[in-house]
């Protein structure tokens, strides 16, 4: 056989084999419902809080939402929520993304869908939760540990060298002044107002009613449905059925999206001890004075 013909035929053969293999491996054309988990405290990095273990990264959630939105086989998206909330920005960016998606998005609250996690859920088309799920806790917090008393006890003083009055606002090494407290509360109130406006718009509930509910109180699923904070009582099956109804499909395969984690997480599952160590360590030795984190 001519050399050139052999090369062309072999290369064609490789293309055919690769395509056949790809098809066999699983290029799926069936209807799918993407299930995206939001578990633990929500933050941009997904680092969670000390003693709370790993959290949910808003960047990962945004990536997964984008993937699901771009996949033509995905007809609806379910957010599997079990989270006490998280940082304001992380919650907001996920809620904003959900509103951009034209496909039906359903929130399925398993254990907890509180604060920032409820903000995210409110942006979906329908919220399904168990009658004993924890819902709501609408409010904003910026509490933090302050060590000035402890430092005094050990005769350690805080040398304040700043160029702006509020530069070291929220430093754990000094007591908060009245002026600083007022400023922080002003910011927290601004975020609170924004938060409840969003919930009111998302859930189509009057601002006055949401204002009454936004005391930070959490509600059980059975209470939340009466208050209009959720739409259905139920579990996974209800969430899947609601998604199918909204997507107008009778059959769909539920596809669970996973966080892509590094080898560090895979080996020894060492993330939790690492975070505890990081949390304790940074409280004492981190000299980078961060502003107190405002969480929803």
């Amino acid at each position, binding site marked *: 056989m001519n*050399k050139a013909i*052999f*090369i062309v035929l*072999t*290369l064609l053969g*490789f*293309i055919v*084999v*690769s*395509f056949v*293999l*790809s*098809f066999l*491996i*699983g*290029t*799926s054309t069936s209807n*799918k419902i993407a299930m995206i988990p939001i578990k633990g405290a929500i933050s941009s990095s997904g680092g969670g809080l000390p003693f709370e273990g790993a959290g949910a990264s808003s960047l990962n959630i945004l990536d997964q939402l984008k993937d699901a939105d771009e*996949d033509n086989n995905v007809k609806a998206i379910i957010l599997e929520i079990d989270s006490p909330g998280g940082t304001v920005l992380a919650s907001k960016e996920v809620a904003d993304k959900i509103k951009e998606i034209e496909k039906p998005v359903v929130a399925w609250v398993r254990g907890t869908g509180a604060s920032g996690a409820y903000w995210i859920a409110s942006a979906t088309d329908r919220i399904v939760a168990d009658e004993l799920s924890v819902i709501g806790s609408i409010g904003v917090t910026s509490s933090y540990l302050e060590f000035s008393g402890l430092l005094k006890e050990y005769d350690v003083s805080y040398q304040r060298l700043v160029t702006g009055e509020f530069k070291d606002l929220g430093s754990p090494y000094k007591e908060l002044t009245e002026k600083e407290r007022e400023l922080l509360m002003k910011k927290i109130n601004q975020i609170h107002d924004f938060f409840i406006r969003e919930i009111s718009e998302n859930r189509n509930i009057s601002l006055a009613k949401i204002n009454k509910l936004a005391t930070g109180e959490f509600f059980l699923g059975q209470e939340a449905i009466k208050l209009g904070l959720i739409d259905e009582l139920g579990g996974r099956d209800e969430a899947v059925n609601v998604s199918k109804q909204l997507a107008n499909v009778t059959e769909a395969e539920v*596809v*669970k*999206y*996973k*966080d*892509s*984690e590094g080898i560090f*997480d*895979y080996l020894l*599952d060492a993330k939790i001890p690492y975070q505890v160590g990081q949390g304790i360590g940074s409280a004492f030795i981190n000299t980078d004075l961060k502003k107190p984190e405002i969480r929803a």
Partner: protein
Amino acid sequence: MKSRKKGVPARFFRRVLAYFLDTLLIALVIGLPIGYAYENTDDSKFEFLSPKDFNAKDLILGSAIGILTVLYWAIFEYKLRQSPGKMLLKLYVSPTNKELTFSHAIIRNLTKISGFLLVLDCLYMVFKKTHRRYMETIAETEVLRYE
């Protein structure tokens, strides 16, 4: 067949260039179709193989690319003594002992399944000051250039 005409050992740089030309071709004929499958296959399809966060999809599709890549070189070198990249750079594979069998062609290309293994394979050339990779010595082959 031209390979029976004895050439001179190919220079390393020439071989690297031939390798990259072949890699480009492989990216087109193997990488693109399997990459398409990668994009359109969800991880859950392989969940039954995943112990935890381990991504079985990466392993399976990566292995498929690796196996087809080795076959690419083995088929061309067994049938023509040259891959398209080698052909363009006037290189060919020659057995140092007997005839080149298909299993020899597979063995000499096995480390091309991974860039890391290939580098290790090539380090042998540096340390032994030879023009043959370690797997080439096992497969009793060498790469020559037409004079």
